[in-house]
């Protein structure tokens, strides 16, 4: 994966340069106009967050039941990246809502559960940082709860009546809007993969430091 990092970085950079042109050429949505174009960054941010959550949840399960240190590295990376993309979704959403709904925020089920999901993964990072010895296992359990919450957040708009658009918006997009959306989503998912790779590399180097430090302590 480290060999693929450079080319992947280049591909993602090119995609993020091209995406605004595709989005600018996409037609306006009939009722919201220009502001609807936030959709092309807002929804892919959540897709990227879901990918990071899946990595964090899967790796946390492996770490919790098998104790593999590398799984813990992937879980940490997944949680951090999930928080970054969750923050992007939570900031771009209100910017869209302020123009489209007239308010920054509604305590609507989708918005509230999305905020809670973000808070669960912030809690994961806080537990790891301040939890002391054994915090990794506690954090892994927190991640499993966060991962179990994610499908409810996604489906909440279909289950409950909300002001937020439901999940059938994306499958029913016209090709002229669906094309730029698919391109933007792919760019975000690749960016997420890139950030995960970089963060996992950092975690591996931190593990190396810990091993070297223990070896040094043993010798002295």
């Amino acid at each position, binding site marked *: 994966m480290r060999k693929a990092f450079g080319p992947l970085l280049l591909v993602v950079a090119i995609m993020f340069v091209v995406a605004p042109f595709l989005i600018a050429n996409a037609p306006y949505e009939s009722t919201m106009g220009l502001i609807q174009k936030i959709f092309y*960054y807002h929804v892919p941010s959540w897709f990227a967050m879901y990918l990071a959550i899946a990595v964090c949840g899967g790796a946390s399960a492996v770490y919790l039941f098998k104790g593999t240190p590398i799984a813990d590295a992937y879980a940490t990376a997944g949680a951090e990246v999930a928080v970054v993309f969750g923050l992007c979704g939570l900031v771009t959403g209100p910017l869209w809502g302020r123009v489209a709904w007239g308010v920054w925020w509604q305590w609507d089920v989708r918005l509230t559960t999305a905020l809670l999901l973000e808070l669960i993964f912030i809690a994961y990072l806080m537990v790891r940082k301040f939890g002391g010895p054994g915090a990794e296992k506690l954090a892994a359990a927190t991640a499993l709860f966060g991962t179990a919450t994610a499908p409810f957040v996604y489906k909440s708009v279909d289950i409950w009546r909300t002001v937020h658009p439901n999940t059938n918006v994306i499958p029913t997009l016209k090709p002229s809007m669906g094309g730029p959306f698919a391109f933007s989503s792919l760019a975000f998912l690749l960016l997420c993969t890139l950030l995960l790779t970089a963060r996992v590399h950092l975690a591996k180097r931190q593990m190396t430091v810990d091993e070297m430090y223990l070896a040094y302590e043993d010798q002295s």
Partner: protein
Amino acid sequence: MMRIPLLLAALVLQPPPGQSEFVPVNELPPAERLQAAPFLIGAYAFVWIAVMFYLWTIWRRLDRVEADIDALARKTPPR
């Protein structure tokens, strides 16, 4: 008697009648419309800044870790 001024104040401070149904943005009078462009640019800029900032933090932490590895390698005599 004490309640009359309060009732009058409540009547005076009544909010204007709210709209009773959903009105699409493009049907609002121009004075009530918000300019979308600053919000759109703000949203895109935020995503860029957040990602760049996070990449920078990874970079900085990696530099620190590499410095620690070098320092420990110098301290540890070769076996």
